[in-house]
């Protein structure tokens, strides 16, 4: 059974159909990359998986259990699915450590003292130990994004979603964030990424999906999709993206 499975997901904003019947299976421990031009539906699809958007039609299964049932309380589901955003979205009025501890404190009712050792361990693992007590505006973009990843991991999610998390970064800061993703993949995390980092997708992803106009045009193992794209749209996109 796939860890995460989408069946014919449809999402509309008004008249505009952003996801037009998307089906996708993600196995446990797999990294799946969604590529395609902006506006192709990648970000919206991730937001739908995390129930930040309600889907119009279709099903989303987590461990075989439908999480897109209308009226279902989204909060328990969101705890199992972590999400990291393009614009970091750290809470600017809290230190890095407070950002990370807020959700475990409120949702799992754990105390700061109880959380401190494992949070410190997380910060250390991602090279952020000396920044725990810094505020977001005292950190570089790359550091902020890594804190955002730590914040999502502190909830011990089973699946992680990454929405173009390197797109807002200066080129020299992209590497440190991609290293974190490699580390996570090594630890067996199930991950879905919307990304423009073609080199990274090719090297690290198990599976790559090319989205256009709200549809998966082509889906294949990373090397296959990049080396021998089948669909003319994929070929055109890759020709432009890899130029």
């Amino acid at each position, binding site marked *: 059974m796939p860890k995460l499975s989408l069946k014919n997901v449809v999402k509309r904003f008004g008249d505009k159909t952003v996801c037009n019947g998307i089906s996708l299976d993600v196995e446990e421990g797999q990294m799946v990359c969604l590529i395609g031009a902006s506006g192709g539906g990648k970000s919206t699809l991730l937001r739908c998986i995390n129930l930040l958007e309600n889907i119009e039609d279709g099903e989303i299964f987590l461990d075989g259990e439908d999480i897109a049932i209308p009226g279902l309380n989204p909060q328990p589901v969101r705890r199992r699915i972590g999400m990291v955003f393009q614009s970091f979205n750290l809470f600017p009025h809290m230190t890095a450590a407070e950002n990370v501890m807020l959700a475990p404190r*409120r949702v799992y009712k754990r105390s700061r003292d109880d959380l401190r050792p494992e949070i410190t361990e997380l910060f250390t693992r991602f090279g952020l130990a000396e920044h725990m007590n810094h505020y977001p505006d005292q950190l570089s973009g790359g550091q902020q994004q890594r804190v955002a990843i730590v914040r999502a991991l502190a909830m011990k999610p089973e699946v992680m979603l990454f929405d173009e998390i390197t797109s807002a970064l200066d080129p020299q800061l992209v590497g440190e964030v991609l290293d974190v993703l490699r580390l996570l993949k090594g630890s067996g995390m199930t991950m879905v990424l919307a990304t423009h980092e073609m080199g990274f997708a090719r090297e690290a992803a198990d599976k790559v999906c090319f989205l256009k106009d709200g549809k998966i045009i082509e889906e294949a193992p990373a090397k296959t999709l990049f080396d021998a794209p089948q669909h003319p749209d994929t070929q055109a996109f890759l020709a432009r993206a890899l130029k």
Partner: protein
Amino acid sequence: MTDKKPTAGKTRRQLYEDRLRRRSAIIAASSTLAVFLAVIILVPMAPGWEKVKASFFNWEVFAKTFPKLLTAFKLDVMIFLWSAPAIVILGLLIALARDVRSPALFPLRILGAAYTDIFRGIPVVLTVYLIGFGIPGLGLPRPWNSPYIWGSLALILTYAAYVAEIFRSGIESVHASQRSAAQSLGLSDADTMRFVILPQAIRRVVPSQMNMFIALQKDVALLSFIGPVEIFRQAGVFKSLLANFTPYVGAAVIFLAVTIPATRYADYLMAKQNRERS
């Protein structure tokens, strides 16, 4: 930045800007001086000046009434001090009611909107009259017929409506992505508001709220219409006793002593925030 450089080291752009700066400083100084001179020379030339001077700027009356006015002003401050926290709490509750998303609580949104519309739509003095005379008119026993209670309530109800709108603008100014981030972590709507949205919203509206409270301090004087002998009423008493308007000027001086520093401080906070955001 390069002010300390010798003239010789300046670029022609810097020399040009120095010249411009000197010129505008001279113009500003001379026009200010001209206006002041005109006021000092022209106003005493008005036919009624001697009379106005005697009845508004009588030093003896000023010195005699000022201490009592100051004592009366304490009451204004007291009314302010117990009204302000109530206004903050009620204003915040109304702002939150207007932000409620659950359809079951839709009536709360309507009530919140109606409340702010009504109390922002009525002149403060009218609300003070209606509540200050109306409710004690029900024949309530002491102390529930006190004008202090009902006058303060009128101020609280009115100002809470304005303060609520300012809180709401603050809540709306927090970017939607902050809400997304909080929700994606599994936080409840209430926790998202309490720990993520509100702390940022409140910080942003502190300067605007300060301006509201400066206005509140002045509007406390409206309670004089329904009884309490606060500073405005006290000045009126002196006016009748001494047949002189100087006590009103004294009262104005006392208000200014409080409101000018407070206004400057609010402006300073606002400027600081603008700098930080840019």
